[in-house]
């Protein structure tokens, strides 16, 4: 696991997640970018990211890669933050989730790195 992702996950763990915002065009992006993917400007600024997001899509996975093979089935969610970035993580605290529902981002420390999670927001 790359150090930039460890840093990103640890900020979520600390309750202070961040993202990158383009000062030229306003595009939101995730680390570790130097160049804005929308306008190619190099003026990306680190800003605070909300801890809640809205579910965009989800899937229940029955057959997985070796690292997660013993944990199937599990649900993977892509959720969209108000700031404009999306993040992929595993669902916690619910048997299923629908697009449009609100979730809270978290992380879990695993043997060889960090896992992003989403739980339904009360």
């Amino acid at each position, binding site marked *: *696991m*790359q150090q*930039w*992702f460890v840093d990103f996950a640890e900020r979520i763990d600390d309750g202070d997640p961040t993202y990158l915002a383009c000062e030229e065009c306003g595009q939101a*992006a*995730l680390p570790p970018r130097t160049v804005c*993917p929308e306008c190619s400007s190099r003026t990306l600024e680190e800003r605070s990211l909300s801890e809640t997001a809205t579910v*965009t*899509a*989800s*899937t*229940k*996975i*029955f*057959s*997985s*890669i*070796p*690292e*997660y*093979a013993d*944990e199937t089935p*599990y649900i*993977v969610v*892509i959720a969209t933050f108000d700031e404009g970035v*999306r*993040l*992929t*993580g*595993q669902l916690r605290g619910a048997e299923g989730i629908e*697009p449009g529902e609100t979730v809270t981002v978290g992380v879990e420390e695993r043997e060889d*790195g*960090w*896992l*992003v999670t989403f739980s339904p927001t009360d």
Partner: protein
Amino acid sequence: MTVQIAGVASTPYGEHPDSSTRELFTDAGLEALDDAGLEVGDVEELYAGNFIGDQTDDQAHVGAMLADYLGARQAASMRTESACASASSAARSGAQTIAAGDADVALVGGVEMMSTGGLAAVTDALANAADNEYENEAGLTFPGIYALMAQAYMDEFDAGPGDLAAVAVKNYENGASNPLSQRQEETDVESVLDSPPVATPLHLQDCCPISDGASAAVLVSESYADEHGLETTVSWAGSGQASDSLALQDRPDLARTRAAERAAEDAYDRAEISPEDVDVVELHDCFTIAEILAIESLGFFERGEGARGAVDGETAADGRIPVNTSGGLLAKGHPVGATGVGQLVEITKQLEGRHPNQVDDATIGLTHTVGGSGASCVVNVLRAGGA
């Protein structure tokens, strides 16, 4: 300099437990050279796609290995890697080299051995096409990524699992009459929906199989074909390639493949055609949803309308725009590093009028090959008519 297709060949796709990467590629390469009426000593450039050989075979430096075992040590050789679009990139590079006048004979192709290492190992290796930190570490698999695209599509448009299944039904039927196809049995919508879930809403029969296989094509310059009396009947018309975000999460619309749209626009411009001119298509149906997204990105259907392509018979071999008459990746199989040239083999046979599911009066054919979930895409266009 016009580029001609002088010869093509694919091994059967499926399980080849008694073969190997180097042997399979040699089989396809020699057959393609025989088809062209050329010798291994004639090959100047060799570009071969191979995606997961580093993991499955503990073998890199694959370009040189394949040239060596083909008996073409004189050739400049290179492995191309763009995930599942590796062989399409190889073909595009070969065509560009000849078009530039830098060489007269290029052998392009690809090879993958996927069945020998076990399902877990191959799933792990394939996952390397995704974003490791943002996707794999979250437990997202390749079927899972396409399942998210399918969910987003069904959420946005009027489509359901039955529409996805119709794609499998069509392609299995085509595969059943293609002797090179891995799956030789037809299916029906009910069987697709009753097959085990892999990643909701995708079932086992929504997914391509694990395949071993190799494909090769011999590309020559028009002047070389003239000088050596080669009777070529198919020409390279144009090609486009483009990129998108590596991770699905970074795309503004999950149910839209922008790299394919960009590559198609580029290829249509270079071939001086529009989507209406295309007679037959081999495209990247690694999962049923992928075919629906592809026929929209290629301009054959409006966004949201692709789901009715197979349901209404418009993409059948006798439909308005025949798609995957070979059986596609779903039935013919998907040896990932070989797939793009395997598609060119099928299109060449269509344009030569010798395909098992022959389309009437096919003069322009197109291949579309996607790397990963769509971070790369290659569109190659062939035209009937040779030197």
